[in-house]
C-alpha cells in the first residue's frame, strides 16, 4: 500500500467532502432557488465573508472530485480494488458518478447564463433516455425555466446523503481524520482566499456563442458537439460500468479494461481542448 500523500487521497477526499458539507450548511440559509443568481450575488457581495464560504464550498467540492479520481487511479494501479467486496466496489464506482451529479447540481444552482445553459443540456440528455426520459427530467432537474428548487433539493439532500452513506461504507468511517481535515482545510481555505470565485454573467447579458459548462464536464460538451444527445449518458454510464467491471477481470482483460479507461480519460481531455478551442472561436 503506498504511503504519504498518494496513499491518503481517499482520506483527503473525505476531508474535502466534510468541508463541502460544512460550508454548504452555512450557505443554505442564504440561497433562494427561486432567485438563484440574486442569491449568488448576495452571497458573493452582500454577506460578510460570504464569498469566502462560497469559495470554500466550491474548492472543497472540486478537491473531492480531483482527490476522488486520483484515489480511483491509485487504487486501480495498486490493484486495491480486489480488497473491496464486489458490492462495495460497485457502489464505490457509483459514488464517483454521484459526485459528478452533485457538482453539476451545484453548478446549475448558480442560475447564471452558463448554469441555465448547462441545465438545458442536462435536461436534454435525460430526455433522450428511452421510456423514462420525461419523468427523469422532472425528477432530477425540475421543469421550470429558471426554477431550481428540484436541483437544489437533490444537491443539498439526495446526493449529499448518498455520497455520505456510500463514503462511510467505502471508507468504513463517517468523519475524516484530523490531519486530513487540517490539510484539506488549509489548502481549500488558501484557494478560497487567493482565488475568489466570480459570479457568472446574467442570462440576459451573456455573450453569444458556445457557453462553457463546468470544467469537469467540458469533455462531455466537446463530445456532444457532434454526437447525438444519448451519448451524453451512454458514455458516462459505460465508463462507470467498465470501472465497476474491472473488479471482476484479471490478466490481459483487466489490462485491456484499464487501458480503455485510460483512453477514455485522454479522450475526455481531448474533447475538452476541442470544445475550448471552438468556444474561443465563437466569442
Amino acid at each position, binding site marked *: 500500500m503506498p504511503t504519504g500523500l498518494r496513499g491518503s487521497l481517499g482520506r483527503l477526499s473525505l476531508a474535502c467532502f466534510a468541508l463541502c458539507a460544512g460550508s454548504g450548511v452555512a450557505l443554505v440559509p442564504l440561497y433562494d432557488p427561486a432567485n438563484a443568481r440574486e442569491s449568488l450575488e448576495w452571497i458573493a457581495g452582500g454577506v460578510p465573508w460570504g464569498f469566502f464560504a462560497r469559495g470554500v464550498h466550491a474548492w472543497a467540492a472540486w478537491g473531492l472530485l480531483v482527490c476522488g479520481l486520483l484515489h480511483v487511479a491509485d487504487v486501480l494501479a495498486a490493484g486495491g480494488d480486489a480488497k473491496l467486496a464486489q458490492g462495495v466496489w460497485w457502489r464505490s464506482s457509483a459514488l464517483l458518478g454521484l459526485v459528478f451529479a452533485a457538482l453539476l447540481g451545484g453548478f446549475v444552482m448558480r442560475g447564471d447564463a452558463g448554469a441555465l445553459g448547462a441545465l438545458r443540456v442536462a435536461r436534454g440528455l435525460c430526455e433522450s433516455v428511452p421510456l423514462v426520459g420525461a419523468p427523469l427530467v422532472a425528477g432530477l432537474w425540475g421543469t421550470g425555466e429558471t426554477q431550481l428548487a428540484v436541483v437544489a433539493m437533490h444537491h443539498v439532500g439526495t446526493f449529499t446523503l448518498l455520497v455520505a452513506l456510500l463514503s462511510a461504507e467505502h471508507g468504513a468511517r463517517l468523519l475524516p481524520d484530523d490531519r486530513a481535515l487540517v490539510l484539506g482545510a488549509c489548502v481549500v481555505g488558501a*484557494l478560497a482566499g*487567493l482565488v475568489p470565485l466570480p459570479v457568472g*454573467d446574467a442570462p440576459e447579458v451573456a455573450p453569444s456563442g458556445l457557453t462553457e459548462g463546468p470544467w469537469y464536464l467540458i469533455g462531455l460538451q466537446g463530445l456532444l458537439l457532434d454526437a447525438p444527445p444519448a451519448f451524453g449518458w451512454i458514455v458516462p454510464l459505460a465508463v462507470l460500468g467498465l470501472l465497476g467491471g474491472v473488479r471482476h477481470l484479471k490478466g490481459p482483460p483487466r489490462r485491456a479494461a484499464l487501458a480503455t479507461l485510460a483512453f477514455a480519460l485522454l479522450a475526455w481531455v481531448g474533447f475538452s481542448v476541442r470544445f475550448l478551442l471552438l468556444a474561443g472561436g465563437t466569442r
Partner: protein
Amino acid sequence: MTRTPALLVAWLALAMGLVAALLHERSRARDLGGGPTQVAGRTERCLACHSAPEDDPGGAHTAAALGCSPCHLGDPGSRDKARAHAGMEPEPGALDSAGRTCGRAGCHASEAERVARSPMATARGIVAVNRRVFGETRHAEASNTIEDVLADPKPSPADTHLRKLCGGCHLGARRDNRDDALSHGRHLGTGCSACHAERRPSRGPDAARLPHVPIDARVPDSRCAGCHSRSARISLSYAGLAETSAHSAQTCADPAPLPDGRPACRVQADVHQRGGMACIDCHLHTELMGDGHVRARASQGVEITCEACHGGTSVAARRTWGDVLDDVTRRWLATRGEVRDDVEAVRLGARGTPVWNLRPDGGDNAGWSLTGKLDGRARVARQTPVDRNHTLRGHERLTCAACHSAWIPTCASCHTRFDPSGAQWDFGAGRVTPGRWIEDETPGLGMGFAPPALAVVAGTRIAPAGPGMILSIEARAASGPSGSRRLFASWDPHTTQKTARTCVQCHASPEALGLGAGRLDVTRARTTFTPARPVPRVDALDEGGWVALFPRAPGTSTRDEVRSLDAEEQRRVLGVAPCLACHAAASDGIYVDFKRSLARVDAREAPRCRIDAAPPSRP
C-alpha cells in the same frame, strides 16, 4: 501522508489565503455603496453607487422610477463594478441597440421601430440626390440607406463624397462618429437621445464626470438645429439666421456667427418663431419619428400643412376626435392626463394624424388656439381669410409658402473637387482615410439669401424653390464625373411672414421667375432681362439663376417632379406686370376676370389704361 513540512506549507498557504480574503472583504464592504438597491420592486443595484442628484435624468425617466439598467443595460443585480457594467450601453437610444433600451417592450417599442425606418435614420433622399448629381443614377429615387452607403466596402464616387462630407448627420451615427453642427461629439446623445436628450453642459475639456442630461419628449429647437442648420438650413432660417460666407457679396447689417463658426446674418425670422413657437409645436410625431412606412425622402414624410392650423379658403369637412384613428396620439394624451371628447372638433395632418395641441377655443368651434409644447402657452391660430388675396383666379396652384415665404438661403456656386493626395474622416470607416473632398465657392458668389424662386411641383402646385445645387464637380481623380449642374430644390424655407409677397414681388420679380438677380424690363410688347452676375458665354443667365427668360425647357431640380416655370408660365406671370403700376392690389376689379380686362384694353374699351397694346403673336 501529512508530514510536518507539508502541513507547514499548508498553514502558510492558508495564512496567505486569509490575508487575501481579508483584503477582498474590505473592498467588498467599501464598494457596496449607500444608495437604494430596489426600484419599483426590481433589483437595481446601480443606484447603490449612482445615487447622486446629478446622476438622475429626472422627469418621467427619473432614476427613482426606472433605475439605470432599463436604459443603460448592464447587470443591475451585480454588486461587482466590472460585472455590473458588462454589456452596458453608454449611449442609450443608439438605434443599433434601441430595441433593448428606449424601444424595449413596455416602453417605446413602436417609436423605436418607426424611427429606424424614418428619413432621419435612413437618409434615403440624401443618398439618392447625391448619386443623381454625380450622374450615377438617372432619377432621384433610391432604395439604399445611409447605413448601406456607410457599410459599402467599395463605395462609388458619390457615396465616397457622402461618407466624407455628410455621413455623420443621421440618427444611426454613434457619438464618436457624428457630425452635429452645434455640438461637440462627446456632449451628444445618439439615436433617440439625439433629439430627446439635451446637450450635456460642458464643464471643460478635462471634466471627468458630467451630470446626466434630462430626457424629455419636449425637444427644443436647438436639437433640431444640430442637423437642420445645414443643407436647406431650415432651422437657421426659422430662427432668422441666414448663413453667409466670406465669399458672399451680400452685405449684412447684423452679423451673427453660428456656434460652429460659420458666418451668418440675422434677418427676418419666421413669424411662428417670433411668436415663440418651437419646431415640435407644428411637426407631428409621424413626421419626426416616422410613421413606420419607408419614405424615399423627407418631404414625403411631412404631414403638417398650413391649412391644418389656419384652415383653407374652401369649407373643409368638420372632423372630430371620434374620427381619429391614431392610437399613438391617444396614448400620449392619456399619459398626460388629457381627455378629448369624441365630439370635439379636431384638425388633422395630411395623413390623418391629429394636431393634438390645436383645439377649438370657443364653444362654437369658430376659432382655434394652439398650445406650445415647450412653454404651454396658448396662441390664437388665425384662420385664413376668404378674401380676394386668397381666392384670386389663376392662383389656385399656389401653396401658402409660395407667397408667405420671405426669403430662402442661396448659394450661387459650389465647387466640389476630389484631392487624392489629401486625407479626411470617413464616417463609414470611422477613421481618417486617404482622399479628400473639397467644397469651395467662386468669390462674390457665396452663400446668402434672396426671395424664393417659384417652382412647379408635380404639375399641380407652385411652391418656393432655391438654388439647391449650382455646382461644378471635378471628381475624375475619384473615378467620378466632371461637369457642372444647375439644380434648384423646392422646400418650405421656414421664413413665413404674415404679410405675403406683393403682386410686384412675384409678377415683376426676376427671382420669383427663377432668373436670379438682375434687371427685368417688362412691357406688353417686349420683356428683357439683364443678369446682375451673367454666366460667361451664356445668354442672359444669372449665376444665381435657375433658367433664362422664356427658356426652351424649364430648369431642372434635385427631384424629378420639380421644375422651374416654363416659358408659357413665365409669360402668364409677366402678363400681369404692366398693370401693376396702377392696379397693385389683388382686390382690384381688373383681376376678377383678368383675361377679359386685357381684352377690353386691346379693344380700347378702357381709354384710361396707358399700357401697351397686345404683344405680337408668339411663335
